[in-house]
C-alpha cells in the first residue's frame, strides 16, 4: 500500500467533520466575546447530521487504508450511533449553555466535535497506534469539557481527577500495547491476531500481562469495576450535558475500541481472555448496581447505572457463540443504551437545572409539573431496568439468551439478580415523580424548551419503537458484515 493509491475517499466523513469543526471554531472567535451563540449549536448539529449522511453513503462498502483505517459494518453502525448521540448531546447543551454564563459556547461545541472525530477514528481503526491517537483525541477533549464550568470548584475537581486518572489509564494501555508490539513486531491488529496463538504458548506471562493492562486501561474508559472510581466524581462535577456525553458517546466509543481490539486483534486466543471479561462483567453488574442504591444525587446514580449497564454490555463479549451474533447483541444494546440514556439525561438536565438541585428529590412531583416528561422518564427508566416493552428489555433479553446458549448460567443468574436490584433504585426516581408532591418553591408547571423536548421525543419514540419492532434492527444487524 502506498499513500498515493490508497482509497482516501473512505475518510470523507472524518475529513468533512474536521473541516466543519474548524469552521465552527473559527466562526466562534470571529464573532467576538458575546456569549449567546445559538447558531453555533445549530451549525454543529447540522454538521453532525451531514456527517451521518456521509457515513451512510461512503461507509456502506468495506475498505481500508493500509491496516490502519478500515471501514466495515461495525465502523459504520457505531459511527452513526456516535454521531447521532453527539447531536443529541448538543441539543441538550444548547439549553444548558443558555443558562450558564461561564461556558464559552464556541469552544464548547468545537471541542465536542473534535471529541466526536476521535470517537469516529477509534471505531474505524485497525492499528494499535491509530486507535490510540483516536482515543486520546476523544479523551483530551473530554478532559477539557469536564472542567468547562471554570469557576465551579466541583467541575474543576472533576477535570483534574479525570485527567490524572485518565492519563494513568492511558499509560496502562500503552504499557500493555508495548508488550504486544515488542513480541509481534507489528501494531496491525490483523497481523497481531495471526501471531498471538504461538506467542501465547511461548510467553504466557507477558501476553497475559499485555491483555490485562489493555483491559485495565480500556476498562477505565468504559468505566467497569474495578476501574470505575472516577465515574461518579466526574459525572457529578462535569456540566450535565458533558456528563451525558461521557456516559453515552464516550462509553460507546470505548466499547467500540474494546470490541475491535479483542475481536479482531485477539480473536484467535478468545479462550484466554473471555473468562476475564466474564469476571469483569459479573463484578461490574454486582458492584455497579449495589452502589447505585445508596446514591442520593441523580447524576451519581446515573454514573453507577452506567457502570452497571457496561457490565451487561460485557456479558456478550464473554459469552460468544458466534461472532456475528455477539456483535449483533452488543450493537443492539448500544443503540438501546444510547436512546434511553440520552433521553434520561435530557430530562435530568432540565430538572436539575430548573430546581438548581441535583439530589434525587429534585424529581419530586414531576408527574404533576410535567406529565409528559414524567412518563417519558418512566419509560427510559423501565428500559434501563430491562422491563418490557422497551428497547432496553429486548437488548437485555437478547444478551440473556446468548449467555444461556453459551452455557454461562452463572452469569445469566447474576444478570437477573442485579436487574432486580437495579429496579430498586430506578423505582426510587419513579417514586419521586409519581408519589410525591412538588416542592413548594418549584413552579407548578415546568416548561420544556424545544431542543430538550426534541431529544426526549426522539429517544422515546426510539426506545418504544425498537421495543415493539426490535426485529427491524436485529434483522439488519444479523445480515451485516461486521468486520472487514
Amino acid at each position, binding site marked *: 500500500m502506498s499513500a498515493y493509491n490508497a482509497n482516501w475517499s473512505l475518510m470523507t466523513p472524518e475529513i468533512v467533520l474536521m473541516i466543519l469543526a474548524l469552521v465552527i471554531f473559527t466562526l466562534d472567535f470571529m464573532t467576538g466575546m458575546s456569549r449567546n451563540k445559538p447558531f453555533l449549536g445549530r451549525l454543529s448539529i447540522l454538521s453532525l447530521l451531514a456527517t451521518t449522511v456521509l457515513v451512510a453513503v461512503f461507509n456502506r462498502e468495506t475498505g481500508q487504508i493500509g491496516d490502519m483505517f478500515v471501514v466495515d459494518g461495525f465502523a459504520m453502525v457505531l459511527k452513526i450511533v456516535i454521531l447521532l448521540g453527539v447531536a443529541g448531546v448538543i441539543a441538550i447543551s444548547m439549553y444548558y449553555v443558555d443558562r450558564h454564563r461561564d461556558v464559552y459556547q464556541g469552544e464548547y461545541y468545537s471541542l465536542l466535535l473534535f471529541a466526536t472525530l476521535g470517537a469516529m*477514528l477509534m471505531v474505524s481503526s485497525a492499528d494499535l497506534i491509530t486507535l490510540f491517537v483516536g482515543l486520546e483525541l476523544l479523551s483530551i477533549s473530554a478532559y477539557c469539557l469536564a472542567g468547562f464550568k471554570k469557576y465551579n470548584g466541583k467541575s474543576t475537581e472533576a477535570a483534574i481527577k479525570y485527567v490524572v486518572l485518565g492519563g494513568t489509564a492511558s499509560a496502562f494501555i500503552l504499557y500493555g500495547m508495548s508488550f504486544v508490539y515488542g513480541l509481534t513486531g507489528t501494531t496491525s491488529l490483523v497481523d497481531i491476531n495471526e501471531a498471538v496463538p504461538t506467542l501465547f504458548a511461548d510467553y504466557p506471562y507477558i501476553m497475559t500481562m499485555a491483555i490485562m493492562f489493555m483491559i*485495565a486501561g480500556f476498562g477505565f474508559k468504559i468505566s467497569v469495576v474495578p476501574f470505575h472510581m472516577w465515574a461518579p466524581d466526574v459525572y457529578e462535577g462535569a456540566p450535565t450535558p458533558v456528563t451525558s456525553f461521557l456516559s453515552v458517546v464516550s462509553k460507546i466509543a470505548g466499547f467500540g475500541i474494546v470490541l475491535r481490539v479483542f475481536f479482531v486483534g485477539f480473536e484467535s486466543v478468545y479462550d484466554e481472555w473471555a473468562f476475564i471479561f466474564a469476571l469483569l462483567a459479573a463484578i461490574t453488574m454486582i458492584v455497579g448496581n449495589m452502589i447505585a442504591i445508596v446514591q442520593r444525587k441523580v447524576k451519581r446514580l446515573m454514573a453507577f447505572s452506567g457502570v452497571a449497564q457496561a457490565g451487561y454490555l460485557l456479558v456478550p463479549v464473554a459469552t460468544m457463540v458466534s461472532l456475528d451474533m455477539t456483535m449483533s447483541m452488543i450493537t443492539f444494546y448500544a443503540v438501546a443504551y444510547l436512546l434511553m440514556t440520552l433521553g434520561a439525561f435530557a430530562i435530568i438536565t432540565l430538572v436539575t437545572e430548573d430546581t438548581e438541585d441535583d439530589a434525587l428529590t429534585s424529581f419530586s412531583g414531576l408527574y404533576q409539573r410535567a406529565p409528559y416528561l414524567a412518563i417519558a422518564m418512566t419509560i427510559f427508566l423501565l428500559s434501563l431496568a430491562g422491563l*418490557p416493552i422497551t428497547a432496553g428489555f429486548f437488548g437485555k433479553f437478547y444478551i440473556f439468551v446468548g449467555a*444461556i446458549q453459551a452455557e454461562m448460567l452463572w452469569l445469566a443468574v447474576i444478570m437477573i439478580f442485579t436487574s*432486580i436490584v437495579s429496579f430498586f433504585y430506578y423505582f426510587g426516581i419513579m*417514586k419521586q415523580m*409519581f408519589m410525591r408532591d412538588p416542592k413548594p418553591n418549584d413552579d407548578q408547571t415546568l416548561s420544556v424548551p424545544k431542543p430538550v423536548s426534541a431529544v426526549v421525543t426522539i429517544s422515546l419514540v426510539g426506545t418504544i419503537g425498537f421495543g415493539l419492532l*426490535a426485529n427491524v434492527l*436485529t434483522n439488519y444487524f444479523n445480515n451485516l458484515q461486521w468486520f472487514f
Partner: protein
Amino acid sequence: MSLLHLVVLAPFLLAILIPFLYKKFRHIHTGWFVLGLPLVLFIYFLTFLPEISGGGAVQETVPWIPSLGIDFTVFVDGLGLLFALLITGIGTLVVLYSIYYIANKKDEPLNNFYVYLLMFMGAMLGVVLSDNLMVVYVFWETTSLASMLLIGYWFHKERSRYGAQKSMLITVFGGFSMLAGFTLLYVMTETFSIREIIAQTDVIASHELFLPAMLLILLGAFTKSAQFPFHIWLPDAMEAPTPVSAYLHSATMVKAGIYLVARMTPVFGGEPQWFWLLSGFGIFTLLWGSVSAVRQKDLKAILAFSTISQLGMIMTLLGLGSAAVHFDLANGETLYTTAILAAVFHLINHATFKGSLFMVVGIVDHETGTRDIRNLGGLMTLMPITATAALIGTFSMAGLPPFNGFLSKEMFFTGVLNATTLDLFNMQTWGLIFPVIAWIASIFTFAYCMIMFFKTFTGKHQPEKLKKQAHEAPMGMLIGPVILASLVVVFGLFPNVLSYSIIEPVMRSILPSLVSDGGEFYVNIYHWHGPNTELMMTIGVVIFGSLVYLNLKRWQEAAFFLKERDPLNWLYDNSLVWLIDGATWVNDLQLTGRLRDYMAYMFVFFAGFMAWGLFYFDAIAIDLENTAPISTYIFVLVAVLILATISIPFINHRITAIIVVGVIGFLLALLFVVFRAPDLALTQLLVETVMVVMFLLVFYHLPELKKESFKPTMKISNLAISIAVGVFASLTALSAHAFSYENPVDAISNYFIENAYTLAGGNNMVNVILVDFRGLDTLLEVLVLAIAALGIVVLVKYTAKGRENL
C-alpha cells in the same frame, strides 16, 4: 391484526383517551366512560362459549419479531376463556362499584386511576389469551406495574408507598425468574409458543435444563399468586382502594400464577418435583394464610390472608391433580382428575364470593369510616342488603351448604383424600399429611369467616367509635356485591350450569393428554353424596371452627396471634436494610472522592497483578549474563536519577519540587544520549524544558504548598505500594530480557532498518517512521496540535480582554 387482537388491546387504546375525557368532561365521573368496555368485552367473550364448550379453540396470529420466534398469537381455549370472562365480568362490576366508591372530588386524580385500571385489564387479558411466552411475559410485567401504581394511588400515605414498592420488588423478581425459565424452555425447544412446547414435552423432560426451568417458572407463579413465603406483599397491597383489591388482589391478578401453573401442567405435570412443589407449598400456604387471618383486626387484612390461603388451596389441587396424567381416563380413573375439577370450580367460586366480600368490606369502610372489627358491630339492621351479601359470601367461604363454597370444599376434601391412595412419588408415606393439614386449615377458615360476619354485623353497635353515621350504601355500590352474591347462590344450587359449558373445556386445557383420543371428562357436581368421609370432615370443621370462634379471646393470647403483622416481613424489611448497608459499605470502602486513594488502587492493582502473573506463570527469570556493560556515565546518571526521585517526596517547596522533576527529565535525556538516540534526547530535552517553564509560570500564581501531616500508616502503605510497583515492573523487564535470549525474537527495528530506504527512500529512520510508515498518525497528531494551538490563541485573546465580561 384480527378482532381478537383488537379486543386485547382495546383497554390500552381506551386508556390513551382517558386523560382527555377526564379533562374535557370534568363534571362527569370518568368511570362512566370506562364502564362500557369491560361489559362489551364480557358479552363478546360469552359468544365464544358454544365453540369452546364443544372442545374447540380459536387462534389468531400476528408476527411480531419473527427472528426470535416471537409472535403475538391470541389463543382462546377453555382456560383462557374462563379467565377472560372473569377479568371482564368482575371488571365491569368493579368499575361500576368504583364510580361510587371514589367520589369525583375536585383534585381526585381519577384519570390516573382509570388509566392504571385499564392498563391492568388489557395486560391481564394479554396474559391469559397469549400463546407466546414472551408476549405473556410482557403483559405479566405490565400487570405488576399497573398493580404497583394502583397500590400507590393514594401516595400521600407512607404505607401505600411501602406496599407499592414491596409488591413491585417481589413480583418483578418473580417475573424476571419466570422470564429466565421461559428462556430455558426456548433454549430446549427453540420456540416460545406454548402449543409447540407442549408438543415437544418428551424432548424437554429428559433435558438437563428441565428442572431449572420448572423452578424458575414456579418462582414467577408463586410470587404472583402470593404463595408462602412470597405472600407478604399481598396484605400490604391492601392499601390500594378497595375496588382495586377486589379486582386485582383477589379475583384476577393474583390468579395469574394459578393460570400459569395450569397452563404449564401439560409441560411439567406428571413429574414428582412439580407435584410436590405445588402441593407442598400450596398446602402450607393454605394453613399459614388461614391461621394468620384469624389474628387480624382489619377486615381487609382478614380478606388478604384469606385470599392467600384460598390461592394455596387451588395450588394444592393443581399439584395433586397433575398426577392424573399417569392414569388412563378410559379406565374410569377419575380419582385424580377430581382435584383439577375442584381447582377449576373453586377458582370460579372464589372469584364470586371473595369479590362480593371485598365490595362489602369497602361499603362498610365507606359508610362507617373504619374497617377495624373492634370498632364495628351491629350493622345488620342498619345495612340489611350489605349484611345479606356478606352472610352469603362468608358462609360460602366457610364451606357451608347450600352455597358454592360448600361444593368446592367437599371436592377439595375428596381430592386430598384421593391423594392418600396414590402410589406414586412417595405418597404412600406422606399422603396422609394432606387431609390432616387441609382439615386444620379449614377449621381456621371457618373461624375467620365467622369473625368477619358476626363481629361486623351482629353484636353491639358502637356509633361513638365510628367516624361516620352508618347507613346503607347507595344503589350503585350495592349492585356489584349483590350480583356476585346471587351467583354464589346460583352456582351453589345449580352447579351444573357450569359443568360442561366451561369447567370441562378448562380441564381439557389443563390435562390435554388424557382426552387426546377423543374422550371427555366426567363433570357432575351435586350436594348429597351420602354420609361419606368428606361430610364428616365438614361437620368436624363446623364444630371445631365454632369452638375456635367462641374461644377467640384465649386463642389471641397465644404468642403467634398477638401481633398482626406477618413475621416474614421481618426478613423482607431487613434484607432491604442489609442491602443498603452492604451497598454503603462497598461505597465507602472505595469511593472516598480522594484522588490519591484512587491512584493508590490503580497502583495496587498494577503491582498485584504483575506479582500474581510472575508467580502463576513462573515467569521470574533473571539472567544478567547477556546484559550490556554498565559504563561509568550510565552509573553516575542512574545514581543521580535515583537520588533525585527519592528526594521528591521530602521536598516541601513547590518550586524546588518542579525543578527536581525537571532534573529527572534532563537526566533521562542524557541517558538517551548515552544510548545513542539523539532524536529522542532532543525531543525529551525540548519537552522537559517547556514543561518546567510552564509549571513555573503557572505555579507562581498558586498559593504556598500546604504542609499536610499524614498518618504514619498511610505513609508506610504508600511506600510499600511504590516499592512494589518498582520491584515488579523491574522484575518483568528483567525477565522479559532473559526470555528474549532463551527464545530469540526478531528485533522490531529490523523491519525498518531493511525497508526504510527501499520503501520510503529515506536514510533517517526516525523521520521515515514519522512521515511515512506512520504518516496517518502523524497527521492526526498534527491535528491535535493545531487544536491546542487554536485553543491557546483563544485563551490569549480572552485574557487580553479581561474577565469583566463574564
